[in-house]
């Protein structure tokens, strides 16, 4: 098993863990974290892909990952701000959203 394949599989595993975290646990913060885990998994796959393109390392996936991180940050921020707003309106943070 080549190195890049190993990282790719790890990335996909991370994606799966994140998926589980997003779908099953009820707490909203868990879900938001889970989305980030999923994102990380995809990024790992991308980075591994960059390595697989030997001999030179492909810069394109790196650019994609950078962009992806920006997007993930924005999404997470929006989600958290929504949660805060909902929390302010009520004191119940148990959300079953995302199911």
């Amino acid at each position, binding site marked *: 098993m080549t190195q890049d394949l190993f990282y790719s599989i790890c990335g996909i595993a991370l994606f799966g863990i994140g998926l589980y975290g997003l779908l099953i646990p009820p707490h909203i913060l868990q879900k938001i974290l889970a*989305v980030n885990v999923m994102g990380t998994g995809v990024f790992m796959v*991308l980075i591994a892909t960059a390595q697989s393109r030997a001999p030179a390392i492909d810069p*394109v996936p790196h650019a994609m990952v950078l962009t992806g991180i920006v997007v993930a940050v924005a999404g997470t921020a929006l989600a958290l701000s929504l949660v805060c*707003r909902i929390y302010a309106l009520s004191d119940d943070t148990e959300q079953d959203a995302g199911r």
Partner: protein
Amino acid sequence: MSGLSLPALLPWLVGLPLLAAAASFAGQRWVAGRWLNAVGAAAQLALAVLVLWLLAAGDSGLGQRYTLGGWGAPLGIDLYIDGFAGLMIAITAALGFVLSLYSCSYFTEPDQAARFWPLWWLLMVALNAVFLAADAFNIYVTLEILGLAAVALVALQGGRPALQAALRYLLVGLLGSLCYLLGVALLYRAYGTLDLAQLGQLVHAAPLSWAALGLITVGLLLKTALLPLHFWLPPAHANAPAPVSAALSALVVKASFYLLARFWLETLSAATTAQGLQVLGVLGAAAVLVGSIQAIRAQRLKLIVAYSTVAQLGYLFLLFPLFGRPSDTAGLGGAVVDAVAYFIIAHACAKAAMFLAAGNIQRAAGHDDISRLHGIARRQPLSLFAFAIAGASLIGLPPSGGFVAKWLLLNAAIDAGQWWWLITVIAGGLLAAVYVFRVLNLAFTDSAEQPPAAEAQPVLPRLLPLGAFALAIITVLLGFNALWVLEVLDIGVPPLQLAADGEAL
């Protein structure tokens, strides 16, 4: 095309709304400035029309490509336009214009308006970018912009239900995007390019292609809200402000459908199977039935409209089984695409009109509970009338865009020899009649049980019902001008593809 170069105009389709977003953000405290947004929308519409006109006038019979910053594929981020994309751009601009006008009257509080306009323009940016993108990763980015802008717009209403719906929408959107991204990553791993056209030539049936296709499909289906994955749509669309609901139902869900169509029938068509296409069709048919029935059961006006969106989206998915597996030549075209594209346009206008009308009614009555809306026709005759016309289009009654769309769809189904879709289409129309007329009956019942409303009924600005009505009129006009729309659609389809169509059927 000596003076005006079509490819040079393409970035402006993205850039103009982006500028508008920045401007509206900067001048957000300037109350009178909100009307400038309407001017911006008009400019966008003019641009779109110009682009479309140039596209139609081009004698190449092929789409147009613009390489951003001079970086061509595979590295660069290209913009590409063909007939299908052009129409999507046009309908976006047209609806954007009407909805912008409407929003100028709708968001009267400076605070609300200040939050609304930048987001609104971002939504336009994202939509135009999605339709123009010729690069898989670029699509991811635009999808995310689209999702985030849409979520923020849904949350604009501020109430708890709206926030919850927005949050759910956001998580779903992120999930969808990540699935899509993973799919793109796999594609890049397999073929080393992100350009759609190049991918289309490279892709062949292989496990990695299938996996990528599966992930992309699931991600986009989630965003398109096809039947089993539609759960998030009704609350989100029903709780958003009226113009936002209209844009979401009319345009945003169509964007992801547009991508699905591109991937399945063009870029990744080598990896698709006939069974897969049929399954998508079956899901679509199920969506038509289930969505309609849910709409019939719904008790709130906007919820009815939202469920109706779920149902109407189902029709679009008949594209896949009817189109069949194209041969290796890429290109979207032929009778089935015509039908579905027309359907998208007709539904966009009708549904936007419906949401605006429902929003007006909700605002006038203070609620949108069907059972308490008797007598609303007296206060909002024009809105209800617009609702009726839009409803007729959804049912598929002539003369309306909906009728032409259904006619084309039925024709395509019979031509393809897949008569069973006929039943879906016709039954869907009948079910639509049930929920539309449930609402229209409001026009004929007087508010006998309601005491004369002593509290001053909110007086709506005149522009609000007019906005809904204008869209309804467009819906009707679509029923008369099908020919022109269909001509535009066929731009960008190589003649070869048309011939291949015939074989595939």
